[in-house]
């Protein structure tokens, strides 16, 4: 019930904290069940990009009780195809695969399809964790507009591709969850002035990020930027916080990189993977090495259009895309938000708004757009991968910037908040329609 709804006050009313929480819980339960349903109906091993190969690693771990070693690619594995591997799946960190392999090894079936469905349940369970952490983050950032965190969580529950990555076995969903945890911990630590407890929590979250896919790693420079921004005049504090975070992160995750170093002589795995790709013979030469300019690369691959399309829904060139009008709607929202974001930022700078979280929004924006740039650079220089899902570890940052930017036009309180609230069931209905009209027919052939 809205606080003061029945009063005659001219103050804009807002929903109560309890109502906010109830809406968020309902949306998260809806999204989780929805994702569970998607996971039930997708063909095993082809539920999404590379599900089969990633599950093969879990299967090997379950069977042999050890992390499989990368021994190179079969001859001509990449010949004739458009893409190369960037880092071998066995070398890419994905800590969650270990407990999943343990569960499958303990209670799994002789039927591999059933085991894939079991592994998918872990991905589905990450969805409510990510959404709840996102809510906690957005609630901290938008404490003056209670509808904003609810709407943000609803966006994350309704974007089809974000739902899809939580419905098949992948290394994306764990990286997204770890990044959401780190983003939450970063905002929390920033707002508390990096007190000891929050710094420890941030360190733990960064350790978990380091144990998962590299696409989550931009939270490291983002953390450094926040610390330096807030304590630029206290260098010893910067050093103390930095050392604490490095120690905790290293204590949690260094073993993986040491293992890579001792097994492959390459802690990150890019060099050893590229050497193996080249050794397999006939692999495509990366566009940059071909002498293609970045502009020509974008034109030739439709990099921007393809990444934008697959950010919202779908993967591959045609798989599970949305109708054209949906992309027009998303484009309109993005353009409105971009204009609003610039207006709000310029206003904040001109008014010298200190004591606010403006620096957090700037750093979150840098983190999100930085990942887009890295994704582009990776496509251009290594593997020509065209998928918007690679930037999902910063999806929470994107939603925060989106809300921040759209709020520049009008405060999300009172009747505006009510109007924003009404868009939530419509977004969720659209997501349900995608399941019915796109996900289900995909199973037929």
């Amino acid at each position, binding site marked *: 019930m809205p606080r003061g709804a*029945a009063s005659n006050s001219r103050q804009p009313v807002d929903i109560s904290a309890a109502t906010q929480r109830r809406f968020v819980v309902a949306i998260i339960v*809806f999204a989780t069940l929805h994702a569970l349903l998607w996971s*039930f109906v997708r063909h095993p091993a082809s539920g999404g990009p590379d599900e089969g190969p990633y599950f093969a690693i879990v299967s090997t771990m379950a069977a042999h009780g050890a992390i499989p070693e990368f021994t190179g690619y079969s001859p001509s594995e990449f010949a004739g195809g458009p893409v190369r591997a960037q880092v071998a799946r066995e070398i890419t960190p994905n800590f969650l695969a270990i407990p999943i392999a343990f569960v499958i090894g303990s209670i799994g079936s002789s039927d591999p399809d059933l085991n894939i469905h079991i592994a998918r349940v872990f991905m589905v369970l990450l969805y409510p964790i990510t959404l709840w952490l996102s809510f906690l983050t957005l609630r901290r950032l938008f404490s003056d507009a209670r509808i904003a965190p609810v709407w943000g969580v609803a966006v994350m529950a309704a974007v089809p591709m974000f739902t899809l990555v939580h419905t098949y076995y992948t290394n994306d969903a764990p990286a997204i969850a770890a990044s959401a945890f780190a983003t939450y911990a970063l905002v929390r630590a920033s707002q508390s002035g990096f007190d000891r407890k929050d710094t420890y929590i941030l360190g733990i979250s960064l350790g978990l990020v380091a144990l998962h896919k590299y696409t989550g790693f931009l939270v490291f420079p983002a953390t450094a930027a926040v610390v330096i921004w807030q304590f630029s005049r206290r260098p010893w504090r910067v050093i103390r916080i930095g050392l604490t975070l490095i120690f905790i992160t290293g204590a949690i995750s260094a073993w993986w990189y040491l293992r890579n170093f001792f097994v492959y002589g390459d802690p990150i795995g890019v060099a050893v993977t590229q050497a193996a790709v080249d050794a397999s013979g006939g692999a495509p030469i990366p566009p940059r090495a071909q002498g293609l300019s970045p502009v020509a690369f974008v034109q030739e691959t439709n990099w921007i259009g393809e990444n934008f399309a697959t950010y919202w829904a779908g993967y591959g060139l045609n798989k599970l895309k949305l109708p054209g009008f949906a992309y027009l709607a998303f484009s309109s929202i993005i353009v409105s938000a971009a204009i609003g974001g610039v207006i709000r930022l310029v206003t904040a700078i001109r008014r010298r708004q200190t004591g606010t979280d403006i620096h957090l929004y700037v750093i979150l924006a840098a983190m999100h757009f930085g990942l887009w740039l890295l994704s582009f650079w990776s496509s251009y220089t290594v593997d020509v991968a065209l998928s918007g899902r690679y930037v999902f570890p910063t999806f929470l940052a994107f939603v925060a910037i989106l809300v921040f930017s759209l709020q520049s036009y009008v405060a999300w309180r009172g009747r505006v908040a009510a109007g924003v609230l009404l868009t939530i069931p419509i977004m969720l209905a659209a997501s349900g329609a995608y399941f019915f009209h796109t996900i*289900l*027919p995909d199973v037929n052939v």
Partner: protein
Amino acid sequence: MLIVQPVHVLVFELPHKYIPKYTQASSGVKGQTMLAPTQKLSRIDVWGRTQIEPGNRVLVTFQLRRGIEPRYEIASGTVIFNRSYSEWQARLTFDPDIASVHEELYIRLESVLGSDSAHLHYAYFDQDIYPDGDLLELDQVEVQGQDLRFKLYRDPTLPKPLAWAEAVVSPAIAAASKSGGPPAWVIMTVMAITGGLGAALIIAASVVAAQVFSKTHRVQTMLATALVLTAIAAAIFAGAEAPIGKLWVPLS
């Protein structure tokens, strides 16, 4: 309008990852062979587009035939197009008892163009997507490995309003079965809770919004908001099944 519209349960649709193309049909015959995937098959949808100048027309006879060679007509219906449509979805409905499961069927589209300036195109795929049939030209396979764009539906086993639930739940159960997913009761339970939560969110959003809009607890505002939200959500969910501007062709 959606409420009075007959309910059909989707039983087969080609995946959306394939992009349909359009093939021109001059006066002549095109068609698609298929196997009835279920009992009580009651509807076949095909897609086309027409370009017709004022005063001109295109006549299309939709026939449902049974068998391989010879094929026997079991139902037919005729439509006269007298204006241009960028894309129409013809819903061919027929008696659900005229075909049995796994029976070979042939949907035959015979067109007569009023003049050379009239154009008729059918949506098709230039890949062999559908394993149980082919696109035919003049009743014969002209190019191997092509399929007409089509959807198959059956009659619901339950009366309205349960038929709507059946139309939503049944394709999910079939998909889960194909994918080695959990049994039907699990799918039904998850869908029921998800649908219930969706409905609860519509009601809750309507209640809260109505209170903010009217600053009172006016039931009328709340009900109107809930109805509008439900209508929008239903229209989005129904998608192409929304009842506006549809081409229904009863075959008899």
